[in-house]
């Protein structure tokens, strides 16, 4: 057993460090460092009698070197073994970088409401800018002066339409059933179970058909857009497109946006129909006959309800496409950026959707639609 670690200041202001520094409990050096830094002349540290070296001691000595450097003092280490001298040389070869990382994201810091709101404001402004640029690209496309390729458009149509029908089928039937259960439980108390048809029909047409379809499409297609475009950004494909003289908005964003705008209203109508069917199944279970259900639907469904849903679908499609494409086009150039863009696309889209839905409902209420 070697003797335990010690550190002390000698009469001639040398810091003497000795013993086995691999022990669990070590003497504190900080106060000795402070005293040492108050002395005149070069800082001298004698480590000749250190029997066992340990990273903790090495780190402390490096810390002292940094302190000495900051105070423009010379540090002399006496009696370091060769291996330690090497290590020390390596560690001190490059001075520590004085700047800060570009994005220092403090974990778990509570941002205040003001800065959050400011972020949302910036985000909204950026989206508007993007919408402006895209609108002019759409106009050029409609005038037939655009770099949009037909194949890109057809692929986007397939992706935003037929390929989404499976999941839309599932969600709309279930949402129809949920609406029916929700209403039936209340309406049965008044013996008015038959009005469940009104509830399901109006609920699907005006609200849930469009909103649920939009949320599914935001998660499915909006995220896919963001992932595709940000991957293209990472692969320098967007640079290549730009330098080939093709406007990347026309080439990549317009077909995706148009595809979603065309497909969403159709999907909303599809979702409405399936939701009503789902509601019929539940209503049947509550003792409403199919004939009653259908005749009730006849009075409940109006062209206004239907159009409100379809218009909502169009607006939601625009919002999803903007959120997805913007996140993708503005993504950084590394693989981490792809994941970030996808998340951003979905979160932004869902927030936009809910805010827009609320706004449209308030507007409809005010206009008496």
């Amino acid at each position, binding site marked *: 057993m070697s003797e335990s670690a010690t550190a002390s200041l000698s009469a001639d202001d040398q810091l003497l460090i000795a013993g086995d520094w691999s022990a669990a409990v070590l003497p504190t050096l900080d106060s000795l460092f402070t005293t040492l830094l108050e002395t005149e002349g070069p800082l001298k540290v004698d480590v000749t009698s250190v029997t066992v070296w340990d990273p903790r001691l090495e780190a402390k000595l490096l810390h002292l070197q940094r302190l000495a450097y900051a105070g423009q003092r010379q540090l002399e280490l006496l009696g370091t073994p060769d291996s330690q001298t090497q290590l020390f040389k390596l560690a001190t070869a490059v001075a520590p970088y004085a700047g800060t990382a570009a994005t220092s994201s403090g974990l778990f810091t509570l941002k205040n409401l003001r800065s959050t709101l400011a972020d949302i404001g910036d985000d909204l402004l950026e989206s508007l800018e993007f919408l402006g640029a895209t609108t002019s690209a759409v106009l050029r496309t409609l005038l037939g002066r655009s770099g949009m390729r037909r194949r890109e458009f057809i692929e986007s149509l397939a992706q935003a339409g037929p390929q989404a029908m499976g999941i839309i089928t599932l969600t709309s039937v279930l949402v129809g059933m949920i609406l029916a259960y929700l209403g039936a439980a209340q309406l049965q108390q008044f013996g008015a179970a038959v009005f469940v048809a009104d509830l399901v029909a109006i609920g699907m047409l005006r609200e849930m058909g469009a909103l649920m379809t939009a949320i599914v499409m935001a998660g499915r297609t909006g995220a896919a857009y963001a992932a595709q475009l940000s991957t*293209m950004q990472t*692969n320098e*494909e967007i640079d290549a497109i*730009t330098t*080939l*003289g093709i406007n990347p908005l026309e080439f990549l964003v317009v077909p995706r946006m148009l595809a979603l705008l065309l497909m969403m209203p159709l999907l909303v109508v599809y979702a409405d129909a399936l939701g009503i069917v789902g509601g019929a199944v539940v209503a049947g279970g509550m003792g409403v006959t199919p004939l009653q259900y259908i005749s009730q639907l006849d009075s409940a469904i109006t062209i206004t309800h239907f159009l409100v849903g379809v218009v909502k679908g169009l607006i939601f499609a625009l919002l999803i496409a903007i959120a997805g494409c913007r996140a993708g086009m503005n993504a950084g150039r590394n693989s981490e950026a792809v994941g970030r863009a996808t998340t951003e696309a979905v979160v932004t889209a869902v927030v936009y959707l809910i805010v827009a839905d609320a706004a449209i409902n308030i507007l409809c209420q005010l206009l008496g639609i």
Partner: protein
Amino acid sequence: MTEAVISVRELTMAYGSRLIQQDVSFDVMRGDIFVIMGGSGCGKSTLLKHLLGLLEPAKGEIVYGEQNFTRSGPGERQKLRQNWGITYQSGGLISAMSLADNVALPLEQYSNYSKADIRDIVALKLALVGLDGYQEFLPAEISGGMRKRAALARAIALDPDILFFDEPSAGLDPISSRRLDDLILQLKESTGASVVMVTHELPSIFAIANNAIYLDADSKRMIESGNPSWMREHSEHAVVRQFLNRAAEQAAAGGDS
């Protein structure tokens, strides 16, 4: 008399407040194989992006022939770009399009050729880089070296005056990278194009460059310019000599294998 095809005047590049390089000035002459070299993170690719107009200079200007590129509008820039061929570090092929569609893209964009003509020209360009028959493959279905060559085929689709390469042989094995160097050299000779290349693949520099600049990451300045062989012997900067001598060793080692 040779004339400058690209003149860079006191170019300062920065990402926001982070300075990358300052006061970079050089000329690329017609017919040059011009190499932008320097250690990792010195701003080589950033300089190339400035030359291509993908990034805007913080200060200074870039002139192509008679035209001031930095002060040109999007339309004028696009006219200039028609005469360029560019391959990017990762190839930059459009991943959703087949090799034939990728190579056809500049032809469809800028030429008035018929569909059948374009198909023939695409086959020719792919044959030049040894990829005829791969027309219907997607970029993801071929190897990295083949992707680089396919990107080269797209770059030469319009017989450009200037070819830009960003790290053409990065990530390739020594034999493939030598083959790509040879290919670039042959294409350059047959088309008479000027070549601007970013690389730190050292053998490439000696194999093909006749003019070069060295960007230094620490001082954030261009510290040397000239012929790389001359630089290697006579540069007053030890770091440049070191960089290039290491290159010579690698080139020699590559030649033995």
